[in-house]
């Protein structure tokens, strides 16, 4: 198979980027999209040109490193799959393919197609954990958790933190990521003591990073390689409202007491 590629090239965060056109030949339908880029990169290296930088690691759809917008879709045309799991048989022979990085102010470009997603880590730092000391914990079966709750927490926890939700959202909002992370822990009994603080702090951090707001376009859900439901966003909204109400009540009582 042959393809015409239109790839975003950018030296670093500060420089302006541009599209470059590449012709590539000798690709089979079994090549993954990233293997096709490998072939192109080897060619570029042999021509003494800089290969295209892109993030990738596990190549089995679980590490969340790969992050390409292919023909206008985060992770490309294959549903429920990361870019590394996208195969060239999804494209027509001779097709022109447009490749761009995740575009968001909170994801500055490092080089070419590689972006800095540390903003997602900082959302976790704000409260995406259960504060337990190593070793100071109860016996694992001490708290029974109904299968429904455990399964639903697992649905949320399946998030691989790739950022496709942000890339696909017309507002570059990180609501699906934040909602999945907040709800995973808020659903479980272990997450209850810190529930309100976690919700408030993670949402505040999400805003501080400069992600957009949710306009319920549901593009995030459609782009998510792990098919995380946007219902979690509704649940996050509810959790935040109740957390804020309770926080107000608590601070009101405190000032009355003081």
């Amino acid at each position: 198979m042959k393809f015409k590629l239109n790839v975003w090239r950018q030296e670093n965060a500060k420089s302006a980027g541009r599209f470059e056109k590449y012709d590539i030949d000798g690709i089979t339908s079994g090549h993954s999209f990233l293997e096709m880029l490998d072939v192109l990169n080897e060619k570029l290296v042999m021509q003494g040109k800089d290969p295209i930088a892109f993030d990738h690691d596990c190549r089995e759809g679980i590490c969340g490193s790969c992050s390409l917008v292919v023909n206008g879709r985060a992770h490309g045309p294959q549903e429920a799959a990361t870019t590394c799991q996208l195969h060239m048989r999804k494209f027509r022979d001779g097709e022109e393919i447009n490749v761009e990085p995740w575009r968001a102010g909170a994801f500055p470009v490092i080089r070419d197609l590689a972006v800095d997603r540390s903003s997602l880590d900082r959302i976790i730092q704000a409260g995406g954990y259960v504060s337990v000391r190593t070793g100071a914990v109860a016996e694992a079966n001490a708290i029974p958790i109904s299968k429904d709750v455990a399964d639903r927490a697992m649905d949320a926890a399946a998030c691989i933190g790739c950022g496709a939700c942000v890339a696909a959202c017309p507002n570059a909002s990180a609501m699906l990521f934040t909602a999945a992370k907040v709800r995973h822990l808020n659903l479980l009994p272990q997450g209850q003591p810190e529930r309100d603080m976690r919700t408030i702090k993670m949402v505040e951090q999400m805003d501080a990073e400069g992600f957009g707001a949710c306009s319920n376009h549901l593009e995030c859900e459609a782009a998510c390689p792990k098919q995380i439901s946007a219902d979690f966003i509704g649940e996050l909204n509810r959790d935040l409202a109740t957390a804020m109400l309770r926080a107000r009540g608590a601070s009101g009582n405190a000032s009355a007491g003081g």
Partner: protein
Amino acid sequence: MALQSNCPTGPIEQRWEKHRFNLKLVNPANKRKYEVIVVGSGLAGGAAAASLGELGYKVQCFCYQDSPRRAHSIAAQGGINSAKNYQNDGDSVYRLFYDTVKGGDYRSRESNVYRLAEVSLNVIDQCVAQGVPFAREYGGMLDNRSFGGAQVSRTFYARGQTGQQLLLGAYSALERQVAAGTVAMHTRHEMLELIVIDGRARGIVTRDLSTGKIDTHVADAVVIASGGYGNVFFLSTNAMGCNVTATWRAHKKGAFFANPCFTQIHPTCIPVKGDYQSKLTLMSESLRNDGRVWVPKSAEDCEKKPGDIPEADRDYFLERRYPAFGNLVPRDVASRATKVVCDEGRGVGPGGLGVYLDFRDSIERLGKPKITERYGNLFDMYHHITDENPYEAPMRIYPAVHYTMGGLWVDYNLMSNVPGLFVLGEANFSDHGANRLGASALMQGLSDGYFVIPYTLGDYLAKVAPTSTAKDVTKDHVEVKAAKKVVTDRLKTLLAVNGKRTVDSFHRELGKLMWDECGMARNEKGLNGALEKLPVLREEFWKNVCIPGMGESMNQELEKAGRVADLLELGELMCRDALNRNESCGGHFREESATEEGEAKRDDEAYCYVAAWEHTGEKTAPTLHKEALEFEYVKLSQRSYK
């Protein structure tokens, strides 16, 4: 130099407790004066950095990925073992210990393995408390399954994403410490050199992969948890970035490399489809519970459609060779049997490198819905990758490199022979002997990180004055500067070669050579051949590799080149180790050491030891040190699955 394992003595079930009591403690007020470097942020590194930060040490953690949550521990599918005996099926700490020693073909330390089995109980408690959503029964209790042919159900799991969920637990604990200011996290940083001063590990040199900046970091101890070296084979189930650089640099600075030839080949991977292939995908070995493995009896039938081959012309070779265990023989046995039939020319699919894993009989017996319920996601994955529907035609599978049991030599405290250098998880050699049991890698990583290093590191630190007060080593120290210069010089040399071959072309060639001569079966002739070819390949690499661009920016070719350069050297040591060990044990199969039926034959008289290799210089052969293995509890016997 005699290797001191520092294993405690006495009744095995009391050793760890006794040892912990004897370990020195660091005064709480003094902990913050000690700086600790952790390289790697997977299950072992992440858990260690989080736990050490929480104890009050000043921790700096490094990973090459863009987030600590992306370490390759994330890809483990099946589960994590623990001797909880929740199923009341006769499991115990002792049984897990026994199974692990036996499964490792008697090439691991009893004391270490017992401790691993013991703290496996705490690991599950810890993960549950962190919010890891393990699978549950309808009553709300944790669910277990039997894994990898184990006779008890001791594996905890979270759908097919257990590694991911455990790593997210460790990652959340780590990020909590980052927020608390006890851990400084350096993502997109790669360790390129170990700094050793007066015989002690005192820091590392790193390269910032986004900017190319080379920096030095000084500390009181260095903990390496950088994973395994399966990528020496180019194609493996490892992530693309997995590498040996951190451990190899430490090895060249004096740390012994133990049992490098012990690699695990996983039998159920999707076969290679072409030269362009970049990695292999594993499918859970639970598939072997209901799938039957076969090839045509005659090589002429290999081109036929599987459905056109009548029952009488099929060879269910695992069931034939191992009637007692059938398709459920351990990983190493299944992989070798597969190689044998493919070597006979009876392999199927492209290049004859594949065997059928057939669910036809199971679908007939249990019905398609039941099979979908059990393996639906795996079938979908297979269908997605190969574009073939496994409900209609049998899957094709082939073994692939999956895990490396070898690694840096460590004592019972997980400290290498270089004082102050600790090694955890897959990066060390300690617990799995010559073969690792399914669902035990996650257990070891977390055990090392959460429940071993927090105690044993303190014992070491209590004996040394903190750098922050002693001020004996700073960034201006001559050795620190020298280490930095070594790194910048090496990078400059690489960039200056400007040859005609890509890094990947060298990596592919290395991988093929290693797979052919030091893969599933090894022999003296092949290994000697590889040992002649590898230095030639290495020399060509340094003369003819082509890396465009410069060092002062993100340069992924340069990153790869540095890793491949180290893998080329490691490959030689692996072959040397494989050549030295003229016995078959676990994942290491020497054709010279087989029974008449072609089964592995251990030689306990000659090889019941850990082979720890010392680097002696670029031009000289490494020196072999032997740590004798003693078995007080588990009786040495030949594994048999007939």
